[in-house]
């Protein structure tokens, strides 16, 4: 499914009455079956964009259209074709891993036997076999993120939105999770929007990297990552990877400096 985002603008009203423009004139066509990374400094509205595409937050202005070739009937509400994986996982602490993974199917009225069978298969495939009866608080951050991934994948929706899912993980766990995500992408070929502030993560995973400006977030440049798939972490040592990294790094360095300057300004007493 293609995702056509046109002129999206997002404005947040602060408590003191002032307004912050998070996104400004964002237009992009996310192609079906492509892995697109959105790379930008903190506060550039990249998470906001993922939430708008996922129908979790409405955009102040602009439109998001999900195009499906095989759907002739009335359009479905935004969000029903996508599912989000959150940075802090948002697992339900009172549900076991199995119960977390089956949540979406349970809400949809799928029978217990069927949803548990599907969930068990997914739990095995993300490497959580034997932890079905554990509560999220009993697992490490990496394992919780695997559970969150399984909970999203069980919905079997064509669009996968990922909002800095590995941002809070330690370096080694992060590499393992990135490789696992590459494997899952290879198997499922979903349309993925992956939000990150890590340059090497964006290049390692994405077919395209959208580099964002500092607030208000606009597209600075779209980098095409023409590295072959299937990929693995060994890719980071290749010259092609280094070339793309340098390109993205130079684009983003100015923006990070700007974002930091603005944060100092916001943080300063007025």
């Amino acid at each position, binding site marked *: 499914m293609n995702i056509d985002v046109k002129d999206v603008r997002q404005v947040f009203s602060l408590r003191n009455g002032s307004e912050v423009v998070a996104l400004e004139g964002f237009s992009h066509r996310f192609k079906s079956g492509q892995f697109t990374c959105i790379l930008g400094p903190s506060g550039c509205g990249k998470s906001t964009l993922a939430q708008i595409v996922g129908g979790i937050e409405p955009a102040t202005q602009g439109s998001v259209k999900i195009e499906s070739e095989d759907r002739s009937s009335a359009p479905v509400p935004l969000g029903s074709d996508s599912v989000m994986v959150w940075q802090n996982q948002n697992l339900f602490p009172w549900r076991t891993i199995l119960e977390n993974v089956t949540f979406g199917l349970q*809400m949809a009225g799928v029978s217990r036997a069927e949803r548990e069978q599907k969930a068990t298969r997914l739990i095995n495939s993300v490497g959580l076999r034997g932890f079905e009866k554990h509560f999220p608080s009993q697992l490490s951050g990496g394992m919780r993120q695997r559970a969150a991934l399984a909970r999203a994948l069980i919905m079997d929706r064509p669009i996968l939105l990922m909002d800095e899912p590995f941002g809070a993980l330690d370096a080694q766990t992060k590499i393992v999770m990135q490789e696992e995500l590459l494997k899952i992408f290879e198997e499922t070929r979903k349309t993925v929007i992956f939000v990150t502030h890590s340059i090497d993560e964006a290049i390692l995973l994405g077919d395209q990297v959208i580099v964002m400006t500092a607030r208000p977030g606009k597209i600075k440049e779209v980098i095409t990552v023409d590295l072959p798939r299937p990929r693995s972490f060994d890719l980071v040592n290749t010259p092609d990877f280094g070339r793309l990294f340098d390109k993205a790094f130079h684009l983003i360095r100015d923006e990070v400096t700007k974002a930091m300057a603005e944060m100092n300004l916001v943080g300063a007493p007025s």
Partner: protein
Amino acid sequence: MRERSKTTWMERVLPTLSVIGFLIVWQLFVDIRQIPTIYLPSPLAIAKSFVSMTEDGSIFFHLSVTVLRIFAGFLVAAFAGIVMGLLMGMSRLFERVADPWIAALYPLPKISLIPLLIIWLGTGESYKIVISAVTAFFPIAMSTFAGVRQVDPGLIKAARDLGANPAQVQLNVVLPASIPSIFSGLQLGMGVAIILVVAAEMIGSSGQGGMGFLLINAGQVMDTERVFASLIVLTLMGAFIIKGQQWLDHKLAPWASFR
């Protein structure tokens, strides 16, 4: 390793020793200084009084009457308080309507309602259950309300994203997420229910018995041994109820204690 296990051994034995030591000092103090029983009975005298109350069965009668009243008041308060707290948390309109009533009645010392309740209900069972239920209602309702309001909005967003409709979100996210707050409200409620039942039994309860009645009665005839024995029974009763409640909370929501 040896150092460690030695510490745990000390930690296990010392609390018991401190109680035994305290009782021995108390007994010796009363015996040597010849303190009149009416002021301070010795532990042995209190124990004798306790044994005589178990032999004639009176302690079991009074204790069970009090426990029944506590649970009756508590259960009424728990049901009403949880329903009230959930409605306030889930409906803005309901919260607005309830707010002035809660603001006015919450800080009122509920014990000051006793004269009015005796005029309306007499000094029978209903008065004692109502006063403990009214008192326990507020902490339960307030904790439930706070629990509903403090649900992590991320969990609600995630549930909606996974296809839950508004009613499913309330039932499957807001309600379970509030359970730790509800349980702590129930513990506070149980504490005040115990206090209010015993207090109510002390005031105008001549016919119906109960631990409060037993205490005030023993005090009026200067039977200090019986006062002490009743106090100890009352302490143990409170401890059993609260510990039992904590155990039950853990059984019902094991995930809450992992956090």
